[in-house]
């Protein structure tokens, strides 16, 4: 019950968050240097054409009116048209965002699969060889830049060993998974390192807790003690960190998509910023902001489910 009302409250909080995001995006785009008219017409545009374009785009209206129109359009799913690609921004996002989401989710899963068991091994063999080896190798992973890791993986597993494609996206779900594996692994490594360090510390903090002794005194198997009592409590803080890292992950996706030539939202974003394609930048920023907000919502719910005290 407490959990359901927590979810309801948390959903309500989403409304002001989204409103704020809309305002910020609206203002930011208008603060960017250069204006849409000159981006469309080029540097040697005549004043009369600039006025005409501004009128077409509604940019001659007062700002509050522009904002209302902006909100109304978004509410009806109309994000405008790309200046360069001549297609609707909505269709561009629908085309590119799923690729990035797929990449990010895969990266997140790989990071979890790598970090949780290794954090466990490291924490339970604290200070021993396994612990030092795991921490050492993750340290290396953490200190290397994403694009560099990407290039190494690409060279070794793509170009030399031919285990994985060197780029592109593929057709069909499994082919796409196959194409995304190396980029997702690239993206996952630094996240896995961060999660592993956090979870290792959390497990060490929990393992000596009195409730773990109490569980031991009940005569439970160590597997049950470790999963039900230790891991569950340790994961609470790590889940929180994981949610916070998703934004970083999306940022990393921009670089990874560029290195691996993946037609995702990250690459589209870079191209649009270079081309001053404001409607696309605006629409994509909004879409990514919504994705991040939803991730926060999801991790909050997950945390409340793991820790009943949060939902109170």
């Amino acid at each position, binding site marked *: 019950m407490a959990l359901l009302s927590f979810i309801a409250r948390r959903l309500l909080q989403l409304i002001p968050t989204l409103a704020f995001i809309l305002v910020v995006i609206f203002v930011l785009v208008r603060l960017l240097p250069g204006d849409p008219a000159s981006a469309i017409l080029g540097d040697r545009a005549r004043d009369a054409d600039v006025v005409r374009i501004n009128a077409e785009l509604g940019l001659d209206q007062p700002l509050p009116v522009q904002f209302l129109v902006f909100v109304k359009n978004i509410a009806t799913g109309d994000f405008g048209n790309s200046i360069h690609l001549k297609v609707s921004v909505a269709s561009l996002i629908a085309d590119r965002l799923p690729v990035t989401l797929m990449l990010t989710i895969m990266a997140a899963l790989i990071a979890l699969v790598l970090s949780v068991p290794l954090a466990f091994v490291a924490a339970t063999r604290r200070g021993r060889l396994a612990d030092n080896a795991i921490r050492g190798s993750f340290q290396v992973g953490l200190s290397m830049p994403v694009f560099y890791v990407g290039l190494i993986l690409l060279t070794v597993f793509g170009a030399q060993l031919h285990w994985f494609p060197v780029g592109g996206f593929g057709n069909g779900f499994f082919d796409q998974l196959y194409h995304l594996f190396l980029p997702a692994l690239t993206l996952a490594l630094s996240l896995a390192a961060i999660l592993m360090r956090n979870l290792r510390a959390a497990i060490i903090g929990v393992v000596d807790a*009195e409730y773990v002794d*109490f569980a031991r005194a*009940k005569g439970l198997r160590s597997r049950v003690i470790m999963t039900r009592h230790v891991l*569950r409590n340790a994961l609470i803080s790590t889940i929180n960190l994981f949610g916070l890292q998703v934004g970083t992950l999306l940022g990393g996706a921009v670089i990874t998509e560029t290195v691996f030539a993946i037609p995702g939202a990250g690459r589209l974003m870079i191209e649009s910023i270079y081309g001053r394609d404001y409607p696309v930048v605006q629409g994509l920023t909004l879409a990514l902001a919504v994705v991040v907000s939803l991730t926060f919502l999801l991790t909050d719910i997950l945390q409340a489910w793991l820790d009943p005290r949060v939902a109170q």
Partner: protein
Amino acid sequence: MSAVTDTAFEPALSVKDLTTVFETPGGPVTAVDAVSFDVMPGEVLGLVGESGSGKSVTLRSLMRLVHAPGKVAGTVLWQGRDLLSMRERELRRVRGGKIAIIFQEPTTALNPVLTVRVQIEENLRAHTSLDGRQRRARAIELLDLVGIPAAERRLGDFPHQFSGGMKQRVMIAIALASNPRLLLADEPTTALDVTIQDQILKLILDLRDEFSMSVVFVTHDLGVVAQTCDRMAVMYAGRIVESGSVTEVFSEPHHPYTRGLLGSVPRGGAERTLLTSIEGTPPSLAAIPAGCAFHPRCDFAVERCIERRPALEAIAPGRMVACFRQADVAAEAAAT
């Protein structure tokens, strides 16, 4: 001898030379030093001492719950088997099933993210063959038994939804789920209000009768000992310095430390007497004085107390004391 008396005189738990040493960077620290005692069936044994006297570590050592870098040596015989050398798999059957432990602070001893039901039922799952429905029924029965109102409704609650006294009751319910024969209680009432303390003590005694189990009660509170225990053992600096029946030890302490402890407890009765306290502080376990560990604080100390450590010796049936001057202590106690 009949079978009845046989079991009555056979200790439920027999501890011999229990020694727990922590390897620290500053050298080994002996928290429990060659402690031996028996617990009879149905008996409540009080383990008394100031904080740092090693009484809690003793309790944890019995169940092999001492954390690294602690090392436990000696023997802990339970039904003829040594708990300290038995395999992990067998030990699991004893833990929770035969011997249960409750801690001082229920807030830290209960897992904050699991419902009370899960925490009771996992004990039942480990030690009984009850099915899901029976486990639930048993969980309700247990909560009811320890005096939690509306037990069925509270089954799905989390520990933080209970008050301190109720949490302690929940912990007791969890510990007793599988009908243990021996309950180890580590200051179970210290964290509670005085009125709640009384209720919990009474509950533990009632449950002792109900389950016909033995209890080892660790406490620094002599009032609690007088109220609940049959026999007591006084610990100082990791060793037992005096033991005997509660009545005997209270009426005629033979160790100066016991005498000091008793002097610091207000007693009911007509006569008003001054409360005394023991001068000084208990020694750090890393720097236990040579000879008798109590000598720096002792009014009776003489040359040989500094040179040699007195052994724990029987002075009467069921009475043990570790003091060279125990006769003088007892004589003076009788005189005042």
